[in-house]
């Protein structure tokens, strides 16, 4: 047995204990209280402002460490690469908006900078945490665990299992689309065909193409994620019906 198996969250059994651990570890991502608590402890050793600032990277670091044994270094780095891209885009867009629309945002520049910093590190942690969370539960084991339950818990559980599977399916869809995209545009973020256009014209066309591509990706992900839902529902319904028959025969 691998000596790191103890630290692999996706192997923790039963599944409800795994769920509780995930919620506890992910709590700082949804509530300010854990960060405030940690910064209070750190402020005994450092300047309070500095303590607050280093709390967020510390929390992100802890969450990465939590995900690492399950994901492995390569997968964690893949997830983090995507997380960095999203976090940078979010923070840069937010600061641009703050500059362009100052009347909407708070006046205190320092407070808004700290808020952006917090947002940045939370996005960096949310991405690996949520993907580890979604993929650590298998819908079929949830369905099987729910088989012994009575209505309405079983129906609710089946809906939860279906929702989980749909979220997991997003990862599959993105992988499939990426291969198709790579065939069409080998350099991924620059279009394959640029014709004779040069310099400023090229930059303008590239921005236009990038914006259209983002919209295409969103639609394609949405549609291809929705696509198998009817078949999934049908399959889950068959299992549910079968369980009802089993229940009535047991009675």
């Amino acid at each position, binding site marked *: 047995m691998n000596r790191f198996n103890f630290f692999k969250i996706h192997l923790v059994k039963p599944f409800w204990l795994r769920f509780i651990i995930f919620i506890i570890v992910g709590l700082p991502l949804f509530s300010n209280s854990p960060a405030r608590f940690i910064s209070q402890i750190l402020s005994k050793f450092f300047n309070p402002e500095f303590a607050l600032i280093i709390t967020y990277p510390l929390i992100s670091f802890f969450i990465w460490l939590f995900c690492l044994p399950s994901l492995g270094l390569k997968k964690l780095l893949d997830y983090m690469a995507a997380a960095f891209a999203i976090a940078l885009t979010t923070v840069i867009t937010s600061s641009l908006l703050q500059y362009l629309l100052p009347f909407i945002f708070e006046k205190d520049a320092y407070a808004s900078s700290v808020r952006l910093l917090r947002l940045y590190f939370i996005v960096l942690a949310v991405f690996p945490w949520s993907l580890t969370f979604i993929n650590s539960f298998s819908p079929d084991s949830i369905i099987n665990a729910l088989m012994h339950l009575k209505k309405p818990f079983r129906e609710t559980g089946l809906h939860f299992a279906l929702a989980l599977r749909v979220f997991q399916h997003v990862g599959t869809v993105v992988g499939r689309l990426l291969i198709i995209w790579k065939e069409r545009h080998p350099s991924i973020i620059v279009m394959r065909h640029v014709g004779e256009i040069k310099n400023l014209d090229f930059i303008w066309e590239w921005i236009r193409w990038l914006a259209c591509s983002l919209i295409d990706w969103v639609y*394609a992900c949405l549609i291809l994620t929705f*696509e198998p839902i009817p078949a999934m529902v049908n399959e889950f319904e068959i299992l549910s019906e079968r369980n009802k028959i089993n229940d009535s025969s047991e009675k």
Partner: protein
Amino acid sequence: MNNATYNISKFNTFETLVDSFVASTGVYFPKLSEGRNSFFKGFYNWLSTERTPSNCSLITPEPLQALSLPNPAQVMYSALRPILNSPSEDCIKEYLSKYGLDPSISTQPITTLSGGEMLLLNFAKAEAQAEYSERLIASNPVFWLNSSRYHHWQSLKEFYGSKQKSIDVLVLNGDTYFDNAQTNDDFKIHPLEFKLSIKEPKVIFPEIRFPIYHAARTITYKCHKEIIVKSPFLISGDNGVGKSIFSGMLSSIVNISSGDLSIEALNGETASRLVFQEAVSQCFAKTPEKLINDVFCADLERNQSALNVFRNLLSEFNNPDQHQECENKTYTLLALKIALIAERLADKPALLLLDEPGWGLSNKDAQLLVYKVSQVAHDLGVALGIVSHQPTWHKFAASKLTLKRLSQNEVDIEYESF
């Protein structure tokens, strides 16, 4: 008395086949070739319609659509769970082996299986479901199979017969197994030559550690030669032997870890383009013409050239049957395939690879499509490769590359010229 029935329904177009499948199962499948607006409209109809569970075992128009769980082990576990209290790993592997699947694929992600492997997994699942499903509704149940695997369908059919369960089969006209009608069309294509250099290319698929462990896998193509290949050529071989991976390597989508695989056309071009087997997801939910316009948004010359190829090829399919069955023929799977081909031809690569070009088309349309595409491609100096196990393509091919499995990780490539 055995009341089980065995019905075969034949259709001219994929759209009518899907409509019939939806009507008989109640399971809605969106038409991605009609673009995003049509998809959302259709999906809203599905969401707002009350339906009764079909309780049928399904082999869907695309084999992947009926496989809702991430890997074969989970698919089989959930299918067997209602009849066996706790299906063992050995039991699952036994089902997979019965349908010619290597038990080692049980932890492999579904999406990395080949079309044939997915279909065989559907067979294994359908057998597991036979105890509690009312009937089997199978769409194109042998299309993805090599002829040496047709007996698996026969086994499944007999199994359902023995359980007195009915089977409804939906196929497109001219299916090689269900409708072995020979066409007398004479397809004469002047061959085009190009150089293919194979130097024992090796592909490594790294191990998957999360969420389920799956060991690393390698495929080595044990072949070291330079061949002058005559186009159009066929890439053929058994299910799961690595045909799609080979075409992926040729078009630089699959990375070669050692060895080399390269092509050189007479016009000096070395790039190759590929039209994947599952054409619908390649459109990114766009209509065919919108797809071409968006790909060439910065290159008007190529845009026009692609649109011309698209319109010319589409006009070849002016048959009355299609007009009757599809109100707007530019939104069909056929039109979508033509758009994908036109987009790649406008790029003028050395080689255009069509992975299972006949999928979703009647035999007549598929043959006409490949014939016309090979003419246009050769006129542009582009060689054409067909990746398929369907015997129907032999009459087009000027040469053939056959992939043969030597061991689990080694494949041999044989070349023959006709």
